[in-house]
C-alpha cells in the first residue's frame, strides 16, 4: 500500500515557492560525511542550499516546492546512506541561541574595555609612584571613563535587568549587590576623576563584569549543548502515525500533528500514537509504559487506550481523543497539578547565600562610613572608604562559586549519559537519601528479552529467531533480536494473532502460540508457575521448543543497587505491576522495601509519607503512571525511553541500557555540592581577609584588582576539580557502556546505536577510532 508522507508541520514556507526544513542527521562523523551529504543534495534538482551544522548534527535544507518535496529529500539522504529525521525547532532553543549571542556580544565589549582600561590603569599605578604629572593622570582617568562608562552600560545589561526583576519581585538575588557595586564604583570614579584624585576604580568595575559574563556564558553554553542533544534525541525517537483520511486514504503524519477527532490505524507491533477510543478491530496491547503492568490486556471496540502502549496482535482503528474525564491520563494530570503546586519552592544555594550576603555587605559599608565620620574623617573620605568596602566585597568570587561548579558537573554528567533538564537539579540530586525505583522499564530493560536461564539448543534458537524476523508481534520481536543471521526466511507467512510459518530445509516450521504449533499440551505447569513471563513456541518436524520472554533486569542493576546502598541510600521499589512480578526483581536486587500494584495516587502517597518523615526522595521511573510521583519527589530521573509526559517532569534523563547513570548522577551531584560549599567558604575567607583592609581605608585600585581576579581564579580552579574527580570515577563506566563494534549488531539497543551518531563526541570517538584520512578519500 502506498502511503503519502505528510511533513508539512516541519516545513517553513518561504517566498516564491521556496521552503526550508531542519533535520537531525544520524551517523555524521567526519569531514567526508559532510561533503557527501551536502554535495549529494545540492546536485538534486530543486535544492537551493544544503548545509550541515556538524556541532549540532543538523542539516538545514532550502528547496523549491515545484521540483522536490520534503519526503523526497529525506529519501535522497537515505540514498546517500544517512538517516535524517525532520526536526521542529523548539522555542526554548531559539531563545537560548539568541541569549547566547547577546551574552557573547556583552562579553566582547567588556573584554575590550577591560583590556584598554587596564592598560591605562597600570600606567597610572606606575606613574603614581614615579613622576606622572597630575594632568596626564587626569587625562588617563577621563579616557578610562570614556571607555568604561559606555561599555559598562552595554555589557552590564544582563545583571542590571536581572537585578531589577529580582527587586520588583521583592527578592534579593546575587545580581543586586553586583549591579549596585558596579554602579557605585563607576559613580565614585567619575567623582574622583573630576576632583583630580589619585585613584579611580574603572578597571575594577569593568573587570568584574568581564569575569561574571564569562561565567554566565559558559553556564548557558553548557545548557544549550545539552538541549541540542536532547532535541536531536527527541526527533530520532519521533514516531509517525497512519492517519485515515475521510476519503479512506492513509497518510503518514508525525504524531505531534495528530488532532482530537482524527482516525488512526495502528498495525500489529506498532506503538499506539495517541490517547483514543478504539473504533474497530480487536487486539492485545502491552501497556507496560503506561501502567507498569507487564501482562498484555485484551482490547476491542469502545475500549480507551493510551499513547505509548504497544499493539500486539490485531490491527486497530482508533479515534484520537483529548484526555477525557475519568481516564487514567486525566487522573495523572490532576495529580501532576497538585504535586507541582505542593512542591515546596526549594531555595537554591546561590540565592540563600545572596539573601544572607547582601544585607551584611551593605550594613558593613554603612557602618564603615559612620565609623569614619565618628573618628573625625571628612564626609568625602568616609564615603570613599565605604564605597571601597562595597567594591572589594563585590561578589565576584561568590557569584562564580556556584555556576562554575555547575558547568563542570553538568559536563561530567553529560559525558556519563545523564542529560539535565533543570538548572538546580544538581543541588537537589545531592541532597537525596532515599531512592525510589519504578520496576518496569526502569529496573528492567524497556524491551523484553528471551530468558537465558533455561537451556535452549542454539540451532533451534537461531531458526526460531530468524523465523521471528517475519513477524511484528512484540514477543516475536524480542526473539528476533537474538538472530545471528538477520535474513528472514523466504516465503514466511504471518497469520495474524497466531504466528508465523515457513518452510525451512524442506520442513514446515511454525512459531507462535502453543495451539498454532499444534502442541496438544503446552508447558502448562511451567506457565502456571512462572507468571512473570510470556511464552512463544517453535515447532519443526518433531522438535519443539518453548521460549520464555520476560522483562530482564538492566545488566548492571544489581551492582548499582549495591553501590547505592553502600553510599547510605535507602532503596525502595514502587511498581504498578503485580506482586508476583515485582517480588523476584526486588529480591534479586536485595531491596527489602517494595510495594506492588500501586496506582499513581498511591505512589505519590508513599513518596509524600517518606518526605513527611524528613527524607529526601529521588524518584526514578519511566511510565506515564510515574509522572506525578516524579514531580512530587525531591529529585527525579527518567530513562530516555520513558513516556513523553514523564520525561517532561524529570530533572534529568539517562541514556542507554545500564542503570549506572543513576549512581553517577548521585555521586557527581554530591561531589559538586561539596565543591559549591568549598567555593562559598573560599569566597567568605577572601572577604574576611579583604574587608578589614577596606574598612581601614587602605584599599587602592591595585589591591582591588589583584584581590578580585585572584579570588575568581581560585574558585574557578577549585570548580575544575569536580571534573577531574568525576571523570576519574566515571572512566571505567564510560567504557563498558560503549557498543562493542565486534559483537552482534542486534545486541545494541536503539539508544546505544543512536548514541554513536548524535553529538556525544567523547564516547563516539573512543568507540571507533576513525581513520579520518581514509574516510575523506573514500
Amino acid at each position, binding site marked *: 500500500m502506498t502511503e503519502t508522507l505528510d511533513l508539512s508541520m516541519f516545513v517553513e514556507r518561504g517566498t516564491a515557492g521556496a521552503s526550508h526544513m531542519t533535520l537531525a542527521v544520524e551517523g555524521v562523523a*567526519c*569531514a*567526508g560525511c*559532510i*561533503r557527501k551529504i551536502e*554535495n549529494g543534495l545540492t546536485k538534486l534538482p530543486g535544492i537551493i542550499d544544503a548545509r*550541515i*551544522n*556538524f*556541532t*549540532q548534527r543538523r542539516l538545514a535544507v532550502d528547496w523549491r516546492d515545484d521540483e522536490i518535496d520534503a519526503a523526497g529529500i529525506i529519501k535522497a539522504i537515505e540514498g546517500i546512506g544517512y538517516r535524517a529525521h525532520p526536526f521542529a525547532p523548539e522555542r526554548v532553543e531559539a531563545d537560548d541561541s539568541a541569549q547566547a*549571542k547577546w551574552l*557573547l*556580544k556583552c562579553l*566582547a*565589549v567588556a573584554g*575590550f574595555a577591560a*583590556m*584598554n582600561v587596564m*592598560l591605562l590603569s597600570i600606567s597610572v599605578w606606575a606613574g603614581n609612584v614615579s613622576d606622572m*604629572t597630575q594632568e*596626564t593622570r587626569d*587625562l588617563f582617568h577621563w*579616557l578610562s571613563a570614556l*571607555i568604561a562608562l559606555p561599555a559598562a552600560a552595554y555589557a552590564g545589561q544582563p545583571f542590571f535587568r536581572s537585578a531589577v526583576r529580582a527587586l520588583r519581585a521583592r527578592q534579593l538575588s546575587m545580581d543586586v549587590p553586583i549591579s549596585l557595586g558596579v554602579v557605585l564604583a563607576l559613580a565614585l570614579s567619575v567623582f574622583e576623576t573630576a576632583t583630580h584624585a589619585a585613584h579611580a576604580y574603572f578597571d575594577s568595575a569593568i573587570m568584574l563584569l568581564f569575569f561574571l559574563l564569562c561565567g554566565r556564558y559558559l553556564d548557558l553554553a553548557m545548557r544549550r549543548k545539552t538541549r541540542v542533544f536532547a532535541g536531536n534525541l527527541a526527533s530520532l525517537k519521533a514516531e509517525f502515525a497512519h492517519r485515515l483520511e475521510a476519503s479512506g486514504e492513509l497518510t503518514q503524519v508525525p504524531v505531534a500533528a495528530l488532532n482530537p477527532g482524527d482516525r488512526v490505524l495502528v498495525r500489529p507491533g506498532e506503538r499506539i500514537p495517541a490517547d483514543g477510543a478504539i473504533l474497530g478491530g480487536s487486539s492485545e496491547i502491552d501497556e507496560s509504559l503506561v501502567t507498569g503492568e507487564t501482562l498484555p490486556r485484551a482490547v476491542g471496540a469502545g475500549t480507551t487506550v493510551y499513547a505509548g502502549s504497544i499493539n500486539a496482535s490485531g490491527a486497530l482503528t482508533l479515534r484520537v481523543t483529548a484526555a477525557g474525564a475519568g481516564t487514567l491520563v486525566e487522573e495523572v494530570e490532576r495529580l501532576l497539578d497538585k504535586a507541582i503546586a505542593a512542591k515546596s519552592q526549594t531555595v537554591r544555594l546561590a540565592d540563600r547565600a545572596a539573601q544572607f550576603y547582601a544585607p551584611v555587605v551593605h550594613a558593613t559599608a554603612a557602618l564603615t562610613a559612620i565609623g569614619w565620620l565618628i573618628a573625625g574623617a571628612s564626609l568625602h573620605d568616609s564615603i570613599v572608604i565605604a564605597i571601597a568596602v562595597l567594591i572589594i566585597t563585590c561578589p565576584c568570587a561568590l557569584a562564580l562559586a556556584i555556576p562554575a561548579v555547575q558547568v563542570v558537573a553538568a559536563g561530567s554528567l553529560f559525558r556519563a549519559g545523564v542529560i539535565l533538564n533543570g538548572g538546580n537539579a544538581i543541588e537537589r540530586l545531592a541532597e537525596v537519601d532515599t531512592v525510589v525505583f519504578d520496576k518496569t522499564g526502569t529496573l528492567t530493560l524497556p524491551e523484553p528479552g528471551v530468558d537465558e536461564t533455561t537451556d535452549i539448543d542454539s540451532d533451534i534458537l537461531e531458526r526460531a529467531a530468524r523465523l521471528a524476523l517475519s513477524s511484528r508481534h512484540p514477543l516475536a520481536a524480542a526473539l528476533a533480536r537474538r538472530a545471528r543471521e538477520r535474513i528472514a526466511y523466504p516465503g514466511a507467512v504471518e497469520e495474524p494473532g497466531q504466528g508465523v510459518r515457513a518452510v525451512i530445509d524442506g520442513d514446515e516450521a511454525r512459531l507462535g502460540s502453543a495451539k498454532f504449533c499444534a502442541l496438544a499440551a503446552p508447558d502448562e505447569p511451567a506457565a502456571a508457575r512462572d507468571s512473570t513471563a510470556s511464552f512463544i513456541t517453535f515447532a519443526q518436524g518433531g522438535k519443539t521448543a518453548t521460549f520464555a520472554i520476560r522483562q530482564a533486569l538492566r545488566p548492571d542493576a544489581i551492582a548499582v543497587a549495591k553501590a547505592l546502598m553502600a553510599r547510605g541510600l535507602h532503596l525502595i521499589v514502587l511498581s504498578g505491576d503485580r506482586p508476583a512480578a515485582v517480588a523476584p526483581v526486588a529480591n534479586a536486587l536485595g531491596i527489602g522495601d517494595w510495594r506492588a500494584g500501586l496506582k499513581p495516587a498511591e505512589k505519590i502517597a508513599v513518596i509524600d509519607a517518606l518526605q513527611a518523615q524528613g527524607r529526601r526522595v529521588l524518584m526514578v521511573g519511566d511510565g506515564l503512571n510515574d509522572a506525578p510521583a516524579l514531580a512530587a519527589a525531591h529529585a527525579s530521573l527518567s530513562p530516555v525511553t520513558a513516556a513523553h509526559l514523564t520525561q517532561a517532569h524529570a530533572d534529568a534523563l539517562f541514556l542507554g541500557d545500564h542503570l549506572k547513570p543513576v549512581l553517577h548522577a548521585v555521586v557527581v551531584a554530591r561531589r559538586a555540592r561539596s565543591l559549591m560549599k568549598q567555593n562559598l567558604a573560599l569566597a567568605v575567607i577572601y572577604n574576611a581577609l579583604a574587608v578589614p583592609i577596606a574598612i581601614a581605608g587602605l584599599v587602592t585600585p591595585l589591591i582591588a584588582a589583584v584581590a578580585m581576579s585572584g579570588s575568581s581564579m581560585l574558585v574557578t580552579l577549585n570548580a575544575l576539580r569536580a571534573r577531574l574527580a568525576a571523570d576519574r570515577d566515571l572512566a571505567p563506566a564510560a567504557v563498558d557502556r560503549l557498543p562493542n563494534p565486534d559483537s552482534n549488531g542486534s545486541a545494541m539497543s536503539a539508544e546505544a546505536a543512536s548514541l554513536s551518531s548524535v553529538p556525544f*563526541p567523547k564516547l563516539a570517538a573512543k568507540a571507533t577510532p576513525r581513520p*579520518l584520512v581514509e574516510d*575523506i578519500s573514500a
Partner: protein
Amino acid sequence: MNVLVYLVPMALLLGLTGLAGFLWSLKSGQYDDLDGAALRILPDDDIDS
C-alpha cells in the same frame, strides 16, 4: 608626553577595529558550527586534479 595625543587614539582605534571584527564574525554566524569549520578544511575537492 605629547606623543600620547596620537598614540592613545590610535591604540583605541585598533582595539575598536578588533571588537568590530569580532562582532561582525559573530553576526555572520561564524561561531555557529565550530567543530564543522575544523573539518571542512580537510577535503581537497576544491583542487582540480
